[in-house]
């Protein structure tokens, strides 16, 4: 899939301010089509109700955390190929391995710049 700056990106995090931070960085990188969700469960609903091209999700959320959300996406016939970038903090290294085994497309460590974010997105999409 080619790099389309108009693709729809879903940002998932339970902290509204964090979603805003990521949204701002995405906008800086040129992506403007962004939707948000508070946790894995809500995110799944969004995925089922509209076409999303890319998911950026936090790890630690109530209701359904990032790992469970990822597994649910990979298990779903329609969504299994969805590009999924996991946002993590340095404390969760062992969880990176869990995410990788669960099929995450890549991960990114907080804090990051718009440039790094863009690089990761491009890298993932080139392989998709």
């Amino acid at each position, binding site marked *: 899939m080619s790099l389309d700056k108009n693709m729809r990106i879903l940002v998932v995090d339970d902290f509204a301010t964090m979603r*805003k931070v990521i949204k701002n960085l995405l906008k800086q990188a040129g992506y403007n089509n962004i939707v948000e969700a508070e946790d894995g469960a809500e995110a799944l609903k969004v995925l089922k109700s509209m076409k999303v091209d890319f998911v950026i999700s936090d790890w630690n959320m109530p209701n359904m955390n990032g790992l469970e959300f990822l597994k649910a996406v990979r298990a779903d016939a329609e969504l299994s190929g969805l590009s999924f970038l996991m946002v993590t903090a340095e404390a969760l290294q062992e969880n990176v391995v869990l995410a990788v085994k669960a099929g995450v497309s890549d991960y990114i*460590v907080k804090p990051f710049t718009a440039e790094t974010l863009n690089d990761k997105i491009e890298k993932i999409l080139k392989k998709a």
Partner: protein
Amino acid sequence: MNDHDSLTVLINNLASDFLFIDGKEIDVPTAGKFLNTLDGLVKEAGGRKMVQLKQVAGCLSSLLEKIVLNSVEDKEAGFNALEKGITLMQEIGESIKNTGSYEGSIEPFAQVITALTGEQGVADVAEAPPEEPQPSQGVQIGDESLIRDFIVEGLEYIDEIEVNILNLEQDTENKEYINIIFRPFHSMKGVASFLNLEQIRELAHSLETILDKARNDELQVTPGFIDVILDGADALKAMIIQLRDSLEGKPAQPLEVDLPVLRERIAGIEEGKGDARERKRVGEILVEEGSVTEEALEEGLKIAGEAVPPRKIGETLIAGGKVTPRQVSQALRKQAGQAMDTGAVRVDVRKLDDLIDMVGELVIAQSIIRQNQIVQSNGDSKLAKSIVQLSSITSEIQKTSTSLRMIPIKQTFQRMARLVRDLSKNTGKSIGVVMEGEETEIDRNMVDEIYNPLVHMIRNAVDHGIEPPEERVKQGKPERGAIQLRAYHRGGNIVIEISDDGKGLDKNSILKKAVENGVVDGSHTLSDQDIYRLIFHPGLSTAKKVTDVSGRGVGMDVVKQSVEKLRGKIEIDSAPGEGTTFITRFPLTMAIINGMIVRVGGEKYIIPTVAIRQLLRPEQKSCNTIAGKGETINVMGHLMPLVRLYDVLHIRPEHEHPWEAVAVVIEGENGAKCILVDEIIGEEEVVIKSLGEGLKGVRGVSGGAIMGDGSVGLILDPEGVFELSEM
């Protein structure tokens, strides 16, 4: 050899997937796929005892994990190693298929992997950090609005944290509470890292770390732990408020929190050493012991602090020849000992309960001896003295043991204070809480039981008592309403008062509702107190709508019932326009009751003294029978209904005429009533014993007690007796 097939398939899959890798780079999804396949291989090979195969597969897993975490410097070498590993496994597989074993050594390969990963054998958790997090590039466009959002959300989170910490304190094993507290710290750390709020990020991170350890059972949730988290949350709050002030151009208030001390305390908790605040420093102990002078210590501290990295004071002093290693180790031991005896001991609550039960038995046994006929009639003065001594010692033990179970009511008050804060937010009112006597102690077994009725009273005060700010201002009251929580001991009870300075009870409204619902008829003149007491009557709710805060049909009648279930009493006092006070009284302990022993015929009963207003022998002329209403006794101008206890209990009394017997005036729900008994034997503290499942529901009796002479007495429930008398 078919049983190799599944393994061969796995190995061949790895090989073919490898061929498809693009450009010698192992990306995350590919690594994931490989890792999963290798997991399967490790398991299969392990099950079939194919040690070498398992080891190689394990090495490759390690390698891939390191690659994913970006800790393999030489990417090409990593790629080549992967290729080597897969080829090696193919070789092993073939060899086993053909000859049943593999003769080569996997050592060289293992060494290659070790060189790349820095680890031996199968790794479990990656030690090296993943990609370097990048420092945020400073404040950028749109950051101010982000900071504002952070402030708002952060403060909300911290309020939530405070409430949940209290929950955790009640239930320290509950991992769910730890998770709930962990998450906000984690989130705040995340955003702070983007916004370059380094102090906040660092503090949130250290708090998050100890919480993480607690939820993985690496740390215990001790009171010291809770304190540190609470203080940490307070510090974060102060930092965020400071941030807000500077954003609004206000002069920054200096942080009241001593950050270095807090950091040290957190570090202390993390190392499992308990709250460092409680312990003396090694240096201080050395000075105390006379091992070193104050000046030498000062100098040593300076040197130790300036060393990079900072050295321990003990080491520094030894190096400077000021103390011997032995003196330092003695001081360290003393310090460790101190951490233990800072006044508190953890005891299993069940052991405590058992102890108190046994002390109760001791009281009874001792009492039986004391009241034994032979002992009493024995004239030996030495024996008498010994018995008195025994009695007095037993009494002391009993007081001390019950006091072991006593805890200050402070925690309950604090929970109520937080509740007021939450509720006032929901209702848009501004309410402050003042506490008095929060050190007053209460039996810990009662603490949870009394919380619910107290909560209802608080809800009442917030919802119906305190007026909205505008209204208060109109009345000349301060905009901020006040709720006062007061606790004190009186007469063997703990008294808890909840006062508000709100609009007070509406007498007329209550009376009207009561008449409407047929609770009273309009003919009686009721005192103010009587009218206020009506709100405890079921079916009398004057709330105009079911609000979210205190609706759901829970009325003051339920509150009264819960209070009385705990053998407590509740009263209410109010002044229109000025406020309302709920006064609840609870016995200091649930196990022992102060009872009045009464005799009816040949039977003895116990009436809780807390229910008794007075005792009297009525005069003949005070006794009347009123047609349609039954017997009454005139007590100081008040006509009170008379209940003949012997009637209710179906016993033959000694005296049938009230003026020959004794009337016990009981404080009842619907006013005072008199119970007629033959004789008052005396007041006694009796140990309550439950009557057991079979007799629990018997009306009129609330429990059993072992009396001084060893016999079992029944404790009467006055309300139940009244009900029975009306049947």
